[in-house]
């Protein structure tokens, strides 16, 4: 009898649910890349903000070291791989995604998340500058080509015609290089079709994230961190578009039925700034949930929803991803998200891995908090190196933030 009870309690995922479908897309993404490699196809390691649409059009399989590093870190092997890279001489001050990826390129195996070794590297520096040397080093070690797209940091609010022309020239050259590497041909009509699908996916993804604006939110904001891998690696696929559309439907139903994937009473609504602390995802998530604090705003998730009409529009989007824009643009985007979602507090992850993102955070978060008239606190952490996070410090700061929100409401 007791065994039967236990069996009944076992979690059986609903195959029609968005969560199941999205999980399957990521699984398929890695499986297809491994199969393609086994069949002798050329595989690329690709930056998360390199246009997925280009590879999709050419039918080239690429995998994403950033996604892999996050998965490895979330499954507990971040420190092990960081140590391997550090033993090779890489400083523990550089990005932990880079250290994990460099280590993986060396040991070529990680049961936490395996992926095929690269035949070429696709780098785009709109998200990160460390990536240039990280990808260069792997290309050098493995003696494989590196395709590098330079997207300059934008000090202005608009993307200029000149900037678009500069980046477009590089993309066209990259397409030629990819044709040579893969032996596959570019098809303009297919590209248009892929752009259409990518927009459909992004639209559904952004609609899903927008449900956070409801009070209470029909979702736990941390769900988005799990789902966003699909927005990175499969934007140009119909399966991704359909899965996100199902996600929207689920959230819409939750609103209608007053349900939420945030399983406790939503007492506080906050904006979370920065990349997730993947090695301590459970602790950081439950540290909020235990206090009824829901993450309803983050620019990290929205960053992978790109809407455009044509190639120029696509380039404009890739020139405007969070880390490539000036403080004023970045600040205004956050103010908009925080106001739209009625965030009552701002929790900033000072990510030891990402100097680019965290470097201007003290000033930017100050400006955002002031403009939205909300309290803020920050904690030290890391996107993939577990050693840079202290649970007790996190707990006190989160508790303090809740108490200040209460105090402002006059409840305390």
């Amino acid at each position, binding site marked *: 009898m007791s065994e039967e009870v236990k069996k009944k309690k076992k979690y059986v995922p609903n195959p029609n649910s968005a969560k199941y479908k999205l999980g399957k897309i990521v699984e398929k993404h890695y499986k297809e890349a491994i199969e393609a490699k086994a069949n002798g196809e050329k595989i690329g390691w690709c930056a998360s903000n390199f246009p997925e649409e280009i590879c999709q059009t050419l039918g080239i399989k690429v995998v994403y070291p950033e996604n892999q590093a996050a998965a490895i870190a979330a499954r507990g092997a971040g420190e092990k791989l960081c140590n391997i890279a550090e033993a090779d001489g890489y400083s523990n001050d550089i990005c932990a995604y880079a250290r994990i990826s460099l280590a993986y390129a060396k040991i070529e195996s990680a049961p936490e998340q395996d992926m095929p070794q690269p035949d070429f590297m696709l780098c785009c520096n709109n998200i990160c500058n460390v990536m240039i040397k990280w990808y260069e080093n792997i290309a050098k070690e493995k003696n494989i080509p590196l395709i590098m797209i330079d997207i300059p940091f934008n000090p202005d609010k608009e993307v200029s015609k000149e900037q678009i022309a500069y980046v477009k020239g590089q993309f066209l050259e990259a397409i030629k290089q990819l044709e040579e590497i893969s032996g596959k041909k570019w098809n303009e009509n297919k590209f248009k079709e892929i752009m259409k699908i990518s927009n459909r996916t992004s639209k559904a993804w952004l609609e899903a994230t927008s449900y956070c604006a409801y009070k209470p939110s029909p979702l736990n904001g941390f769900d988005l961190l799990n789902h966003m891998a699909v927005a990175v690696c499969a934007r140009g696929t119909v399966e991704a578009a359909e899965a996100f559309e199902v996600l929207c439907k689920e959230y819409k139903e939750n609103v209608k039925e007053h349900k939420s994937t945030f399983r406790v009473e939503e007492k506080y609504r906050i904006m979370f700034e920065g990349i997730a602390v993947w090695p301590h995802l459970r602790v950081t998530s439950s540290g909020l949930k235990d206090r009824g604090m829901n993450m309803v705003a983050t620019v990290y998730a929205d960053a992978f929803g790109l809407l455009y009409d044509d190639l120029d529009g696509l380039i404009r989007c890739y020139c405007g991803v969070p880390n490539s824009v000036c403080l004023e643009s970045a600040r205004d985007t956050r103010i908009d998200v925080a106001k739209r979602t009625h965030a009552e507090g701002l929790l900033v992850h*000072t990510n030891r891995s990402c100097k680019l993102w965290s470097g201007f955070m*003290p000033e930017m978060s*100050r400006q955002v908090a002031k403009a939205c008239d909300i*309290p*803020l*606190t920050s904690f*030290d952490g890391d996107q993939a190196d577990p050693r*840079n996070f*202290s649970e*007790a*410090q996190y*707990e*006190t*700061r989160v*508790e*303090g933030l809740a*108490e*200040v929100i209460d*105090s*402002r409401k006059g409840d*305390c």
Partner: protein
Amino acid sequence: MYTLGIDIGSTTSKCVILKDGAKEVAKSLIVAGTGTDGPNRALNEVLKKANLKLEDVSYIVSTGYGRKGYRLANTEISELSCHAKGVMHLFPKVRTIIDIGGQDAKVLSINERGRLAEFVMNDKCAAGTGRFLDVMANVLKLDISDLEKEARKATNPVQISSTCTVFAESEVISQLSNGSSRENVVAGICKSVANRVATLAKRLDIKDEVFMSGGVAKNEGVRNAMEEVLNTKIVYSKDSQLMGALGAALFAYEKSIKEE
């Protein structure tokens, strides 16, 4: 009605018992923090001083680093709110609180209604905290309580430039071997702590009065250095270390009344 606040820090445990949320009946401070027998010893001592039994206490609030999982507490509240509460009870004109404990430093901003409005805390590094002073006192073969006496004698404080406790330790040793006097080195150490915490404080709009709480507040050398760096007068009480426990006891009274 008796209520009790217990502040379980990283290096000390403090208790305060209040009668009817106003009159301080007894207090205790044991130099042993979370993970030790310190909390129990502090509790036993405060009960003994108050001539009370545990069952006489209506409500207990725990605070501090070891607040979670303290099984005798009815509830726990962060040290941020408790320090603010305790200080505002005794010093209602205070608008900025600088609290330096064993392993963290925080600056609290209090609004016109006397409530916690904003706060900033140190990063993961222990520089600028009580632990930093512990390590330095150990290097100098001094008791932590002697640091202020030494600092008072300084004529030309040395510059301790490093913000890292480990590197600063090497720097102190180098200064001593280069002939700097112990008192000038101690004054340099106090200034280093003040500089470090002042950068935190300056992130908030520092408003008078400024109060220093926590164990490090006992050190006159740090207080003086802080006054100099922030260019403001620092208010201090000999019970600065007990502000968290006092705030917890006040919250305990309010919660007890509310629940009744």
